[in-house]
């Protein structure tokens, strides 16, 4: 039996970034490692198995000491982190802080069985033996990046660079957003000497999730001007974008350095400059789904100067908002215990030794592994075909057997993303979150390396995202790295976001076709009406001496029609302003939307009311067909045409208006209340199309009610029309009214 990763080894390997304290200082029972190990009554044997206690297995705490929390790693300018690392890597845990702070030098290594000797640098000390420390309360970026620069590159793709981040370019410090102590604004972390550093909310991290979102948010500075941040107005951006899309989605339209997309732990990486050698069990693929020698790159490039690689981040839903995400796809060999959830894994060092032996003598050591080939000729082999999967599984089973590891109740499985198999052709799914490739593959939100506002998505207009060639919806993203034949399976980002091609068709039509069509449509109709007036002129009635006035519309009818007129104008203006994204601020657009919504309810109610009072007058009669055949006399026919209170054209208009109002109401309610994103896209487009046609129809209606038929306005505003007008335009209605008189 053995333990692959103990607290002692954790401190040795991971203490180079961890600031000390916690598990680098105390065991799980709260004992300080070195004192507990040094106390004879505890019976800890240096280097011994020590009852397979993971805190003391094969450890040497009494000699190495512990790594206490080192305040100066953060709070001292010019702290020498490299020297600290060297001490920790020599198992000189106790001495690391002394060297890192520059107090002195250390000779000797616990790891070499020596007793380290410290020599203090007297130039650091005053005559009285005290030191004066230029301690900086608000940690400098350089100190944060001791640890975060490299660790945040591989899968988070962070660069933290002037070249890539507008905040760093503006001189912002990490602590300006990641507040802590008495500077923190969130009560969960605010307090004297509180060291819960304000953090965001990362899908891939689970430590202290109760402290998620304790850091400054974008809005804190960019709405209130804190730290002289430019205050955003989001001109011409409809406000629902701000509720559904995270700031990062638009303000990180491009990433500038790679982030690992695939971590393949099923093959052996023979790329150069991978240290330590055990890391060869991981092969990475970049966002272009091509092999990426991450470890080689991280050694080859000076700190902070990662090689450039521009790509569009994948957009996905996380907690109700669209965020740019890096999801890591994983391929690995696991151990499944029957009847239990979850998949564990063999010791990685055993997998490494298996491959190492095979590479040394492929024909004799685990020869099955020779079947694993580079089918897609991209430079890395991949375990993809059934034969390859079975070869790998057989090799791992053999390796475990040779180690005399019992597999009772367990199976060796190959895990490919969110599924696993024991034989390469029967697969079982693993439950995962919608934004994950697998629960065993981390997902990170892109939060840093923000681009300037003028480069954000939408700065070029709505079609940056809503156009048919926009990357927001239509860029290709990886669904699976290998499809069983070594080829990559691709899907559109829209599919990952849950949008259908059908709905997106409506969206692109709205933005690419309907908008220009509307603009030209209004202009064309306007010109055509002018032409009509010039060519055909108005339909004037012949006035006679005894031209009495007839009651056309009662008071109630006129009031309802006035309301309809006003509401239609309000709806048209507010709708068109937001539809054409006139450059108002988001707040103004929200205000217009609110008016549009509430007036919409009133408009629908009003039109139903109009219809109810005029229902009997809009029923078609046989003679209406004659009116329609002659186009109402508007194209040259001068004689009288049969018409009741409303002519056929007006009847059609009223029915169409009712129909349009119902569609507008239905699509409007869908936009407001639906949770289905696809339905909302379709509704927006239909709403726009119907509104367009409705406005055109009303333009014609207004023309016909004014210039084309003089005397008509008097009827709707005063309620009365002349008998001659009635005889000309509505002879059937005129005859009925005269008979009544």
């Amino acid at each position, binding site marked *: 039996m053995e333990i692959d990763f103990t607290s002692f080894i954790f401190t040795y390997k991971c203490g180079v970034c961890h600031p000390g304290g916690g598990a680098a200082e105390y065991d799980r029972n709260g004992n300080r490692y070195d004192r507990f190990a040094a106390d004879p009554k505890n019976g800890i044997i240096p280097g011994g198995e020590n009852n397979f206690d993971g805190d003391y297995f094969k450890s040497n705490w009494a000699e190495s000491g512990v790594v206490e929390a080192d305040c100066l790693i953060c709070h001292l300018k010019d702290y020498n982190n490299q020297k600290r690392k060297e001490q920790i890597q020599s198992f000189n845990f106790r001495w690391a802080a002394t060297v890192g702070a520059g107090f002195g030098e250390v000779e000797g290594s616990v790891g070499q069985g020596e007793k380290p000797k410290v020599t203090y640098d007297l130039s650091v000390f005053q005559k009285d033996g005290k030191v004066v420390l230029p301690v900086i309360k608000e940690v400098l970026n350089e100190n944060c990046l001791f640890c975060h620069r490299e660790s945040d590159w591989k899968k988070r793709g962070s660069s933290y660079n002037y070249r890539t981040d507008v905040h760093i370019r503006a001189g912002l410090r990490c602590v300006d957003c990641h507040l802590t102590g008495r500077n923190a604004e969130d009560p969960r972390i605010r307090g004297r000497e509180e060291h819960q550093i304000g953090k965001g909310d990362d899908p891939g991290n689970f430590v202290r999730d109760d402290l998620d979102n304790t850091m400054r948010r974008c809005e804190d500075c960019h709405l209130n001007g804190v730290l002289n941040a430019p205050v955003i107005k989001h001109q011409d951006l409809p406000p629902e974008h701000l509720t559904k899309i995270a700031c990062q989605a638009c303000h990180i339209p491009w990433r500038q350095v790679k982030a690992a997309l695939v971590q393949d732990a099923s093959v052996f990486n023979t790329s150069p400059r991978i240290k330590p050698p055990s890391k060869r069990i991981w092969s990475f693929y970049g966002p272009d789904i091509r092999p990426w020698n991450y470890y080689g790159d991280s050694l080859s490039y000076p700190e902070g100067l990662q090689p450039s690689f521009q790509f569009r981040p994948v957009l996905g839903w996380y907690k109700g908002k669209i965020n740019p995400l890096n999801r890591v796809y994983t391929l690995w060999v696991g151990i499944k215990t029957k009847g239990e959830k979850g998949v564990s894994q063999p010791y990685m060092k055993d997998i490494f030794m298996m491959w190492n032996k095979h590479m040394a003598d492929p024909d004799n050591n685990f020869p099955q592994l020779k079947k694993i080939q580079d089918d897609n000729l991209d430079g890395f082999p991949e375990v993809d075909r059934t034969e390859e999967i079975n070869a790998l599984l057989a090799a791992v089973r053999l390796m475990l057997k040779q180690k005399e590891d019992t597999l009772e109740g367990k199976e060796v499985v190959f895990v490919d993303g969110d599924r696993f198999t024991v034989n390469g052709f029967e697969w079982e799914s693993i439950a995962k979150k919608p934004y994950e490739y697998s629960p*065993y593959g981390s997902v990170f939100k892109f939060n840093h390396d923000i681009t300037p506002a003028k480069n954000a998505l939408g700065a070029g207009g709505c079609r940056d995202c809503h156009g048919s060639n926009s990357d927001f919806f239509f860029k290709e993203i990886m669904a699976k790295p290998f499809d069983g034949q070594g080829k990559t399976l691709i899907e559109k980002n829209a599919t990952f976001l849950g949008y259908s091609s059908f709905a997106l068709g409506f969206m692109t039509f709205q933005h690419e076709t309907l908008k220009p069509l509307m603009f030209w449509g209004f202009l064309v109709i306007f010109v055509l009406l002018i032409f009509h007036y010039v060519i055909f002129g108005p339909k004037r009635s012949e006035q006679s001496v005894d031209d009495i006035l007839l009651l056309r519309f009662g008071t109630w009818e006129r009031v309802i029609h006035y309301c309809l007129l006003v509401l239609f104008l309000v709806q048209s203006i507010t709708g068109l302003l937001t539809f054409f994204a006139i450059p108002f601020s988001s707040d103004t657009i929200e205000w217009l939307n609110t008016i549009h919504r509430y007036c919409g309810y009133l408009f629908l109610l009003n039109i139903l009311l109009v219809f109810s009072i005029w229902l009997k007058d809009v029923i078609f009669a046989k003679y209406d067909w004659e009116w329609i055949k002659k186009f109402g006399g508007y194209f040259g026919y001068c004689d009288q045409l049969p018409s009741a209170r409303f002519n056929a054209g007006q009847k059609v208009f009223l029915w169409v208006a009712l129909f349009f109002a119902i569609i507008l109401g239905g699509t409007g309610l869908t936009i407001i209340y639906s949770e289905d994103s696809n339905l909302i896209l379709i509704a927006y487009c239909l709403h726009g199309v119907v509104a367009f046609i409705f406005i055109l129809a009303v333009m014609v209606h207004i023309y016909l009610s004014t210039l084309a038929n003089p005397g008509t306005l008097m009827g709707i505003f005063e309620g009365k029309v002349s008998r001659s007008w009635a005889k000309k335009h509505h002879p059937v209605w005129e005859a009925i009214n005269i008979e009544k008189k």
Partner: protein
Amino acid sequence: MKTYDRLNRILILLVILSFVMAIPAFAQTPSSDPDEKAYEEAKQDAMGICPPIFLRDENGNTINPVSRVNADVPYSPKQTCGKCHDYDKITQGYHFNQGKGEKMTKNFAQTYPWCTSPGQYGGRW
């Protein structure tokens, strides 16, 4: 004379009594009541920066390389900085603990059966 002597005796008694009553005040050790702690903190805040300090080893002993006292042992951040700053409170920070002692959610525990905390001790690639 008798009266004078009596007055002297009373005066001496009063002086002795005053002295006896003052002893507790002189003998008073620094208490840890909240007011005193707040005052200590206020003084630290007033200073604003670290004053010149002695480095201290793991056992709290002074290190003075100038006078070669205890100058062959490494310094201890806990004993040195911890003289004025609340080391235990500070190291509650998640940068130090990284999930140590945190309870896992049921889903986390089932998905990563080898983990005993939500920290980055393995779990996800």
